[in-house]
């Protein structure tokens, strides 16, 4: 029957009747049509929709096969086609989130599990070397110490608040690994954010036992944590934070021997605050199956205030961006380290040519 099946693609926002059909089909399989899909692959048998799979960047989503079409090997057929479509769109590395009971089906399509949230979701990737290759590289940066810390920053841009967090964390532990979120979904591009963190760390007295790593897909990216970059919606998906945090606990922390994860307290942003709460839960939890890696202690460090007088506001990158937009460089000056200020004044101030491309979503 496989040769009688027609595969075609649907582009969201263009073909509305097709989209309605797909949405209906997904609804009958208890799946929602995600809003951020780039392209949808549809399988039809004499006009009847019997299966679909979609892509959002390098993430495979909305995969469903009609009940009566199961057992026809339709999933490998769809995934082969989707691999070529993704490849043509520049995504060789694919991820999929699926229910644990479908893990074997995706394994037979060449996917390998990265991490599983018990009874909820499995995150998989289409290469056996992905996370394993990454952690093998990370092992080169391992330092054998009693207390090894880690901080994950977006640093959009790097402020004195971030510097304070790194200083407190570095003083509290013997060696500190800093990861800068690599996803280019922020106001400041990744290369600038990474350079600013490196420059900011270089002027700290604790710099000898801090290592700044460029982030990867496995550290707070659209793949591990899609909703972080949609946080204006105020929705945080518990599963998404669990996947991101368990990847950290299962793969990154053991590779580097990390025992503590440091984070700033979050007075403003609800999504980040929720993430901090989830961090305690997933990293410290001890009742997971014994196959899980050892817990990582989470330490919250209070944010530093902008001024000395009591009641002055804590420094936040959001505030820095707001001042930058207003062109208020004098107010901004005390909030950021010198290298950050130099770059902001030269490249991003309203009268500095040319203005940067602004992303639509801006996490703190």
């Amino acid at each position, binding site marked *: 029957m496989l040769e009688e099946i027609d595969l075609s693609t649907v582009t969201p926002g263009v073909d509305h009747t097709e989209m309605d059909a797909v949405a209906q089909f997904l609804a009958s399989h208890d799946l929602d049509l995600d809003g951020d899909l780039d392209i949808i692959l549809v399988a039809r048998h004499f006009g009847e929709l019997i299966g679909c799979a979609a892509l959002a960047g390098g993430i495979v989503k909305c995969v469903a096969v009609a009940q009566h079409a199961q057992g026809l*090997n339709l999933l*490998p*057929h769809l*995934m*082969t086609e989707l*691999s*070529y479509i993704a*490849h043509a769109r520049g995504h*060789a590395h694919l991820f999929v989130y699926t229910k644990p009971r479908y893990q074997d089906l995706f394994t*037979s*399509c*060449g996917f390998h599990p990265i991490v599983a949230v018990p009874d909820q979701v499995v995150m998989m990737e*289409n*290469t*056996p*070397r992905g996370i394993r290759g990454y952690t093998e590289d990370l092992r080169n940066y391992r330092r054998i110490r009693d207390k090894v810390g880690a901080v994950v920053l977006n640093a959009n841009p790097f402020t004195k608040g971030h510097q304070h967090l790194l200083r407190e964390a570095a003083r509290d532990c013997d060696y500190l690994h800093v990861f800068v979120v690599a996803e280019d979904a922020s106001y400041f591009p990744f290369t600038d954010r990474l350079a600013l963190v490196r420059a900011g760390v270089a002027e700290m007295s604790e710099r000898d036992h801090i290592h700044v790593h460029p982030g990867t897909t496995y550290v707070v990216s659209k793949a591990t944590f899609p909703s972080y970059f949609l946080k204006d919606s105020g929705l945080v998906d518990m599963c998404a934070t669990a996947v991101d945090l368990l990847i950290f606990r299962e793969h990154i922390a053991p590779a580097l021997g990390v025992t503590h994860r440091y984070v700033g307290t979050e007075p403003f942003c609800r999504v980040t605050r929720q993430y901090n709460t989830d961090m305690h839960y997933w990293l410290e939890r001890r009742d997971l199956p014994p196959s899980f890696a050892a817990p990582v202690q989470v330490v919250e460090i209070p944010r530093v205030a902008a001024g000395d007088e009591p009641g002055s506001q804590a420094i936040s990158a959001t505030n820095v961006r707001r001042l930058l937009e207003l062109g208020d460089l004098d107010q901004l000056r005390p909030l950021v380290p010198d290298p950050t200020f130099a770059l902001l004044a030269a490249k991003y101030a309203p009268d500095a040519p040319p203005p940067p491309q602004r992303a639509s979503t801006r996490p703190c």
Partner: protein
Amino acid sequence: MRIVRDSLAGTLESSDALVRVSPTDGGERDVSINSSVMAQFGTQITEVVQDTLDKMGVSQGQIVVEDKGALDCTLRARVQAAVLRACADEATGTTDASTSVDWSLL
């Protein structure tokens, strides 16, 4: 031949294989093979893949083979196609390797 970009060849259908090739920053050739008939023919499948890569002079890069019981000739063809799609020619510096491949080796 030098692997300079990601490529794909083949399918996940029964009796075929899907081969992915990706560039790596230095290091050795990294081959991962997964097969539905690994237990029966694993050794031979590995030999065919390694032999094809040797003959094409691939010394670096990551090669992932998802085999669904392909015959040797199919497997060889899929590996060759994936490598040709992924490589650049060192002698001429062009991105199209097909002009200078020693086809008699394949």
